């Protein structure tokens, strides 16, 4: 579809029309925290945000979800599956780093071992991405990982703020359906506007990650990990705010005769994450756990799924780590390490 425009005043009208037909989810502010949540009307949304604290991966892979309920009566066991969604959804305002993370998570949850809960949420959701404000936050580094904050790649529609109007790029059938809902609110761009209405280019520091994986893999036994892990507190913030982390735990809550099987996020930074029933723990100290996190992002994930790095440069871990373990510094440190240490 050709590029269109919508006035800022009409955006709310369009979203309200969408909310009449779909579950509308977008950025809201509560207690000083930006989060993606369901809204009844566009008036509940905020547009003054860089990004949400918890990434929108939580809308596809929730922090806690019921998988099914079970009942046992005598010898009879009844299972009741949980429906992941009641209604088709539209997510408004997702940023491109998080769009990029979904294509990585798709590999985990939709490749050969399909996760029906995740898949249903993905299929029944339309993404309206909102190009990032310029200048970006000083912490952002998505372009390092090949993400273009102004591209519609991966979403269904991209909106770009160019002053009085948003440019509208609907790039999938799902996206065009939503644009069709807003009849009369969208206008084509004149030839002059095609040239004039351009977002300012995004200027972001670029980290050198060309040989990151090879360099990292040569550092498995390096003393670097000991030092890096000293300030780590062993909490789970970095993994819970990470849009690509996807580890989970499963537990039955209730009694042996009546209960619910839940899945909830887990974190490889927890000391008991890799603990086995035997008492053996292959990652006994923070050194191994910290090393594992970076290996997973920059070596294990790419080698297992044949993708790029499993980091999208959203900088959430950088900003929120209470111990000040900074992923950008790790990348720089690894790139600066000379030679190969004793493997």
């Amino acid at each position, binding site marked *: 579809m050709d590029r269109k425009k919508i006035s800022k005043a009409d955006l709310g009208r369009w979203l309200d029309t969408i909310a009449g037909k779909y579950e509308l989810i977008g950025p809201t502010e509560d207690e*000083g925290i930006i989060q993606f949540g369901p809204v009844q009307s566009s008036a509940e949304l905020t547009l003054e945000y860089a990004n949400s604290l918890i990434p929108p991966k939580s809308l596809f892979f929730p922090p*806690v979800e019921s998988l099914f309920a079970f009942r046992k009566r005598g010898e009879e066991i009844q299972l009741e599956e949980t429906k992941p969604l009641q209604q088709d959804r539209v997510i408004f305002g997702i940023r491109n780093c998080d769009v990029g993370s979904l294509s990585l998570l798709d590999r985990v949850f939709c490749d050969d071992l399909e996760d029906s809960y995740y898949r249903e949420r993905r299929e029944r959701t339309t993404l309206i991405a909102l190009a990032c404000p310029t200048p970006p936050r000083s912490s952002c580094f998505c372009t390092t990982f090949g993400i273009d904050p102004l591209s519609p790649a991966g979403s269904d529609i991209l909106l770009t703020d160019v002053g009085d109007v948003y440019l509208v790029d609907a790039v999938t059938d799902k996206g065009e359906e939503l644009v069709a809902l807003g009849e009369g609110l969208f206008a084509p761009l004149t030839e002059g506007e095609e040239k004039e209405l351009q977002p300012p280019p995004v200027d972001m520091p670029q980290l050198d990650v060309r040989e990151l994986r090879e360099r990292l893999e040569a550092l498995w036994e390096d003393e670097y990990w000991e030092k890096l892990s000293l*300030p780590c*507190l062993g909490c*789970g913030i970095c993994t819970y705010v990470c849009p690509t982390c996807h580890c989970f735990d499963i537990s039955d809550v209730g009694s042996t005769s009546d209960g619910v099987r839940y899945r909830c996020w887990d974190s490889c930074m927890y000391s008991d994450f890799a603990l086995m029933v035997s008492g053996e723990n292959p990652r006994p100290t923070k050194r191994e756990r910290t090393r594992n996190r970076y290996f997973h992002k920059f070596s294990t994930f790419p080698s297992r799924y044949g993708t790029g790095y499993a980091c999208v440069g959203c900088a959430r871990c950088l*900003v929120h780590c*209470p111990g000040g373990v*900074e992923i950008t510094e790790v990348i720089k440190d690894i790139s600066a390490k000379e030679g190969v240490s004793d493997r």
Partner: protein
Amino acid sequence: MEDKLQELVVELLGDGAMEYFIGYRQGFEPSHVVPCFVTDKSEADRLIWGPLCLQNLSKYVLQARDLDGKVGLLVKGCDARAIVELVKQHQIERDKIVVVGVPCEGQVDPRKMEQVLGVSMEQVTDVEDAGDEFLVKVGGEVSKLGKEQVLRDKCFYCKHPTSFDYDYTLGEVQPFTIDSESEEYDAVEKLEELPLEERRAYWLKQFERCIRCNACREVCYGCYCKECIFDRTDPRWLDRTPLPRENEIYHLIRAVHLAGRCIDCGECERVCPVNIPLGRLYKKLQKDIAELFDYEAGMEYDTVPPLVDFELDDQDPFL
């Protein structure tokens, strides 16, 4: 003061008086200060000191327990209370720690500063202590903010701005005034006045946001159990799922376990990514402990936390 600190650290590392030193350095942006572990003299020039050096570094001494030598630590007076308690609770021997006391004239609460300035901390390039106020630089412009506007809650009622127990000190606190009439337990008393159901509803709403990242536990000096009750799987006392009822129990168990040991360092509230006002919960504990047992944690070495102590004539009507 930074020069003095850096020189001292270089000297202590050179003498072998400690294996490494823990202080502060600037993080990815000027207003973001993070812990700095100095293992080599050449890194001492990264150490900084100022009103954004928020973290209580005391928890880190526990991971240095097994070192052959000592660990050096920069402590504000408030953080030193954790050292006192760790020693009293037999978690580390005092002579394993080289305490470098720093005179603190108040720390900035970044969330308050963002509200007062109306800009994100990302825009703040410098914060300087100037007695009764802070000089704050945003985009090249310097503005003056009275300390009462942006200080961390705990700083209003600071009991000792410099540690009473130190091996080295970087100086004395210059007197300053805070233009405020609020009292230490104002926020707690306001909550206490609410009817029980409203008070419960208030806390349940706060705990609902909890994502159970455990940051409040991990940053707390007092959470040093080898196996935390929350991690036990047999029996499983508490489920890991961040459901409201589990979150409520999580926070109440943690609070009760810290009764009489909480030193009001405010770290739990500061690190909470979802802004749960844990400081108020723990302030309530301190108030109760002060009223019931006339005890304040971390203020001196020769008293015992009331809930780890007993006397033969203690009342025990519930037994």
